[in-house]
């Protein structure tokens, strides 16, 4: 992925991942989009989430030497969808 897209922002889809000591180890991904800058990458990520709520997307820059994503447990609002509260 880094060889094919040097020094670029990507939105990727996580296909296989597992938790390990508060870090999400990502085993297999697929590149969805190449974006221009961090802000545009997050916007694209949000758009893809809306379109495909059951798939897992993620934003990364290929200058990162390892794909390291911390993982935290949330309760409360997280995961609620728009219709739950605007109804």
């Amino acid at each position, binding site marked *: 992925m880094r060889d094919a897209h040097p020094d670029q922002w990507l939105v990727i889809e996580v296909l296989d991942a597992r938790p390990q000591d508060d870090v999400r180890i990502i085993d297999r991904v697929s590149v969805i989009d190449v974006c221009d800058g961090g802000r545009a990458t997050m916007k694209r990520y949000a758009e893809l989430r809306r379109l495909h709520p059951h798939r897992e997307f993620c934003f*990364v820059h290929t200058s990162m030497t390892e794909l390291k994503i911390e993982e935290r*447990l949330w309760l409360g609002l997280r995961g609620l969808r728009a219709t739950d509260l605007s109804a």
Partner: protein
Amino acid sequence: MRLTSRHELAFVTATLTYRGTTIEIPDVLVDTGAASTVIDADHAAKASIYLEPTDRLRRLRGVGGHEHVFVRKIDWFAIDGRGLDGFEIEMGELDYGFQLGGILGMDFLRAAGAILDLGALTIEFAGPQAPP
């Protein structure tokens, strides 16, 4: 400070300072069910906080969903003048379909000594006033 009640949830306005720019963030949900504090990326952008290659990435996993955010240490984060220096905040796309500037989580509420009076709908802080 008064909490604003909407949908039976409590909201405040927060102040964030980053590299000399101070912004107000309205509609921040006070959420004791949230471990950490997250700010909507559109608001963060007003203080020139954008996702950069050096930012730490994090995945928040909740009941019924998950989302990816990035983590940035900001200079000052406060509610009603009471706040914390060098506080780490998550920045994310808060797409919940209603106005949400951020979520004030337990990390801030505990560290700042917040006292919530949900009958009177107020938030106060224990201890001496912290200097900005």
